[in-house]
């Protein structure tokens, strides 16, 4: 064991890996935000609440219908995406073309209402959700004990992130989507139903949040404020990565997870502000974010 910077390399590797795992959650949530902001120009403050709804949906499927983790991984995001699309159709659509602040206020209000309803219904300390049988246990890596579930979480979310990036940047569907954002009028002239595209994109974005929620359910308490605690950090991640940049959101998510993990070793008291310190620094030097396009 060689000590490095006052801690053993063993501990350092362990913390790096944990940071990467936490980064996976940041990446998935900030990805959804980035997709929604990039395509709809909406700052979706309800994202944390919908992440929470995703986790609760998984819990509800299990406790009411005995539907386990694997089906929930598909069903819960679909349900939440549907809910998101209803929100988009009935509310957010009316704000198209207005200042960002309207969308922000509406989604923030929605988040408070959703959290309030869940808190009233389920209390603050939340509900238990067990680890899926197949992913119990773990492996001793020598420098740390890696629970199988955490390994799964990081691999799964990385795949989802890359798939999303590929879809938006490299496929025809993505090209149409980007065109619709750039110039909706012209895209419509090509016979493409832009409003439907926007609704589907919002559904996809919040579906990602719900997916992260299901992924989080077995390791964090499923409780009404689980998203509220997360969302501010995730917004900082998006800002650091560059608003609307898909790759930026993914990269910044993983990077900040690691930085936060390391802070927890060297100066734990600063762990929950380090992301914001970095955000300030990035905004001062490069206001568009690390991977952001020029404004």
């Amino acid at each position, binding site marked *: 064991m060689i000590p490095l910077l006052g801690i*053993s390399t*063993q*501990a350092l590797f*362990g*913390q790096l890996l*944990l*940071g990467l*795992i*936490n980064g996976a959650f940041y990446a998935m949530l900030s990805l959804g935000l980035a997709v929604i902001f990039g395509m709809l120009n909406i700052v979706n403050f309800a994202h944390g609440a919908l992440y929470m709804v995703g986790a609760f949906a998984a819990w509800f499927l299990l406790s009411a219908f005995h539907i386990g983790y694997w089906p929930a991984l598909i069903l819960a995001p679909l349900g939440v995406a549907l809910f998101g699309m209803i929100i988009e159709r009935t509310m957010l659509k009316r704000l198209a073309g207005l200042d960002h602040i309207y969308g922000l206020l509406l989604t923030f209000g929605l988040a408070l209402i959703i959290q309030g309803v869940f*808190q*009233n219904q389920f*209390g*603050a*300390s*939340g*509900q*238990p959700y*067990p*680890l899926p049988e197949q992913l119990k*246990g*773990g492996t001793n890596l020598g420098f*740390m*004990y890696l*629970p199988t*579930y*955490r390994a799964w979480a990081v691999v799964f979310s990385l795949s989802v992130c890359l798939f999303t990036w590929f879809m938006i940047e490299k496929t025809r569907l993505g090209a149409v989507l980007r065109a619709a954002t750039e110039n909706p009028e012209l895209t419509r002239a090509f016979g493409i139903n832009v409003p439907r595209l926007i609704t589907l994109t919002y559904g996809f974005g919040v579906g990602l949040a719900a997916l992260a929620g299901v992924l989080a359910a*077995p*390791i*964090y*308490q499923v*409780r009404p*404020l*689980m998203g509220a*605690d*997360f969302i501010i950090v995730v917004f900082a991640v998006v800002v650091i990565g560059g608003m609307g940049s898909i790759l930026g959101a993914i990269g910044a998510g993983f990077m900040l997870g690691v930085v936060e*993990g390391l802070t*927890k*070793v060297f100066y*734990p*008291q600063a*762990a*929950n502000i380090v992301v914001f310190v970095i955000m300030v620094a990035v905004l001062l030097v490069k206001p568009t974010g690390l991977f952001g396009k020029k404004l």
Partner: protein
Amino acid sequence: MKKIVLAGVALGVMTAYAFAADKVVKVGVLTDGSGPYADVGGVGSQIAAQLAIDESGMAGKGWKVELVYADHLNKVDVGTSIAREWFDQGKADVIVDTLNSGVALAVGQIVKDKNKVFLNSGAASSDLTGKACTPNQIHWTYDTYALANSTGKAMTKAGGDSWYFITADYAFGKALERDTTAVVSANGGKIIGNVYAPLNNADFSSQLLQAQSSKAKVIGLANAGADSANAIKQAAEFGITQSGQKLAALLIFISDVNALGLPVAQGLEFTETYYWDLNDDTRAFADRFSQKAKNHAKPTMVQAGVYSSVLHYLKAVDGLGSPADGAAVVAKMKATPTDDQAFGKGSIREDGRKIHPAYLLQVKTPAESKYPWDYAKVIATIPADEAFRPLSQSECPLVKK
């Protein structure tokens, strides 16, 4: 003419109010209504206070008891400004619960300045009856000394002679770590290290990994509410207990056990001064409580403490005939033995410490649990005179030595 009639009515209302005003007492429940401790106190504390008011018989003695409720959001500035507003606008004579040591320590000073009464049930720091004690406050349910003295001592004596702490980074966590350290050292154990985690932390994997690599025999969780729940859940995931380390949940409540579920929580040892299923009296109170509670939850010890403290307070106010002089009410409360269904017979010491037994409990296995909320069994009872810090060790200036 109409004006005169109206004025007459108004005058009548005012005189009626003036007569009634002589016998009005106002109870303010200040607690965490939405944060990590909301199920420990929260609306349940309001229900408990209302039960005490209804059962006090004050209405029959010509008293009007009013209840106000507020959420301090676990923020000291919010808590103190609510306390000031309540006192300055005459909305409360007594503040109960508080459930956050940071808020409680600050509110205690305001209560003293305004000569009101502070019945703390939820906040844990033993400083409330130590250097921060005042003639206007009583620490009702439990404190960090009692937790350390029960769970900490039991685990050290059972062979857990090296400890690593995961500590909530504010007044409560630090007090709990300090008091447990003292007990562990006194019983021949040693402290290997500690790591701080912020209040309301979702992910404890980093802290758990550090605790794991410390090779300490016991990992002490000096946190509470949703924080301990998350830490316990993740400790199971990281195989902490399988690898031979023991987890000491220094403060968990029955609501946390409920939230964790028995498969994860089973085997944990924890300390309560009230557990709903101890005897017929505790069950009777719990039944009345859960009829009004959301999802028929059983009361936590904090909520039981709110009930018990409000009941005793109202008795003292009735005896004095007025809640106006807070210090006098507290003096009367200290002079009178306590007796209620939740805590049985007890007393209040000069430093403001309410005295009753503490129970070392163990979470049952899913197979042992026979009915809803059948979560724990008593493995040791710490008698009232041993459960709390002896007066001889008190730093409270009120204690004459």
